[in-house]
């Protein structure tokens, strides 16, 4: 009897725990699992919510494979995700390291850097549309005063995605900073002192001590940023509507258009399922890289 562990114990011994878990499980089941299963199921149909649905097997997936616009959306999404994730983490880390030191008004700086996270996405997007305005916007004003020519930020197929990425980094790096700051608090001061005594430069301390010791934080951040970036929608909806020339059309944007614009919910569900597995794949690969780094 004493050898029996708590997790293997009979249900009625831990019924209290299950009773407390049940409401959460119920909500999770209703809000996450059920829709997810339904979506995967729908991806094998031509459901439109208007006509009787037919089972079409893998047709939606075959269609996706040949759909040039979907492939463009995947490419755009990857570009956006990589473009947002890594600069966000790098800037967040630098801001966190800088603001982890004690100096006057650092709480003010922390607040300023975190503010973009708190702004409403739509409001921020509208402001950035103004900032990017090619003829009278401040961004081009800055470019011109630096002697660089004005750029057609949101109206060029070559620049629009970059412009969206810059805005996303501006919005997200505060989150990265806060998470990195929390991670930095866990590194004992003595370790830095030991490194200083060992003759490490500031850069070496950052690169050899701080960054590796924040490894698990970095991984966590990377996963949430990738997942979040893969699902970008609001900013694109407001700022470019997927254009110009589909250069900012991402998977979720196309899903929305396909489902609600074209009432092809089955096809859209197949896109969503592909997106789900792509995100899953990224998470798994990320975990693997992380484990190897630790081992």
């Amino acid at each position, binding site marked *: 009897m004493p050898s029996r562990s708590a997790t293997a114990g009979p249900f009625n011994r831990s019924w209290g725990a299950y009773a407390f878990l049940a409401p959460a499980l119920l909500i999770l089941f209703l809000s996450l699992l059920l829709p997810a299963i339904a979506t995967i199921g729908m991806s094998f149909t031509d459901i439109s919510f208007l006509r009787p649905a037919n089972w079409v097997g893998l047709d939606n997936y075959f269609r996706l494979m040949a759909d040039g616009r979907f492939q463009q959306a995947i490419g755009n999404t990857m570009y956006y995700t990589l473009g947002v994730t890594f600069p966000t983490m790098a800037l967040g880390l630098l801001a966190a390291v800088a603001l982890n030191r004690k100096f006057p008004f650092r709480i003010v700086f922390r607040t300023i850097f975190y503010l973009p996270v708190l702004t409403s996405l739509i409001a921020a997007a509208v402001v950035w549309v103004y900032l990017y305005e090619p003829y009278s916007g401040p961004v081009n004003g800055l470019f011109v005063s630096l002697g660089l020519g004005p750029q057609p930020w949101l109206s060029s197929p070559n620049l629009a995605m970059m412009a969206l990425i810059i805005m996303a980094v501006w919005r997200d790096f505060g989150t990265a900073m806060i998470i990195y700051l929390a991670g930095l608090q866990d590194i*004992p001061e*003595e*370790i830095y*002192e*030991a*490194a*200083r*005594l*060992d*003759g*490490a*430069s500031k850069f*070496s301390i950052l690169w*050899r*001590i701080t960054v*590796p*010791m924040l*490894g698990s934080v970095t991984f966590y951040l990377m996963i949430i940023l990738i997942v979040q970036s893969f699902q970008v929608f609001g900013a694109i909806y407001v700022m470019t509507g997927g254009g110009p020339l589909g250069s900012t059309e991402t998977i979720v944007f196309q899903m929305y258009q396909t489902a609600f614009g074209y009432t092809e919910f089955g096809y859209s569900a197949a896109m969503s399922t592909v997106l789900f597995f792509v995100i899953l794949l990224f998470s798994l690969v990320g975990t693997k890289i992380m484990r190897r780094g630790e081992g």
Partner: protein
Amino acid sequence: MAELELSGVSKTYGAFNALKDVSLEIADGEFAVFVGPSGCGKSTLLRLIAGLDPVSEGQIAIGGKDVTSRQAGQRPIAMVFQNYALYPHMSVYDNIAFPLQMERRPKDEIRAEVAKAAQIVQLSTRLQDKPSKLSGGQRQRVAIARAIVRKPGIFLMDEPLSNLDAALRMEMRSELTQLHRRLGSTMVYVTHDQLEAMTMADRIVVLNGGKVEQVGPPMELYHNPANLFVAGFIGSPPMNFLAGTVRSAEGATVSVEAARIGVVTLPFSGEHLSAGDSVTLGIRPEALELGAGRQVQFSVVPEAVERLGLHTIVHAGEEGRPFTALFNGDPKLRAGEAINVSVDGASVKVFDADGILRSRRAEV
């Protein structure tokens, strides 16, 4: 290999004076121990020497060179921290190699140096492990090895044994002593434990309230504690103190009347004392003998008797003031039964009203 010279070193944090005008010389190859109660400034002093904190005033010279304004990494020192401060994400090898890598030494050389240091601390088989897989003692050895590879002029150790259990601490004490002998480098060791100080130090620096109370070899501090603070801090069990008044101070003897022991005449020069002065008598527990065999005799009533085999400790406090006696062997004593004890007059220390030792013995 280097000597250390502190002159007029002070450190203030806002209005708080952590260190006040500390001047000190530590010779090349010497094992110096900074000891004192917590908050006495010993760790602060070590951090100033290391260069982790800047001095507020004064100079620090190592090997004859003023290093006061040099960064931590630019001083010829290495430090072992209380919590080891190992890099948890690096293997034992990389931990030890880190300072050499920072110096951009060739890979082969680093490998050889790490192997040598690992051998000294007996960790050659654990080089690929992460610190989390090691025991406390092993982690401490890694920290020591990391210090060794730098070939520093001075080793700084900040309470390095305080996180180890008693048995391991004893073992590490002797290992550190051996290491010191083997490397021959200067060591500055901080502890709050007077036993560590006594067993390891060539010279002890006793600090209290940010000031140096006394500097000297362990036996000098034991036999001639400069003042009441040092007398109470060095020695275990601590010295017994009895309040008294000088009856007469003439020539080579001083006559004192004190609680418990009445009037006694002690064999030392009374040139700094005069009749009527308040003094404190200090008697080491181990200086007391059972019976009336010595010059100063009195009786005590044991409250508790601790038998340790090799010796026996008797607690006989009175009116809230502790009093202990330590006898060799295992004499037949019982709590509550009065016993006669005696002590050599020459072993009784006399401190004046300012707490300064006035019964200095020359022959140590």
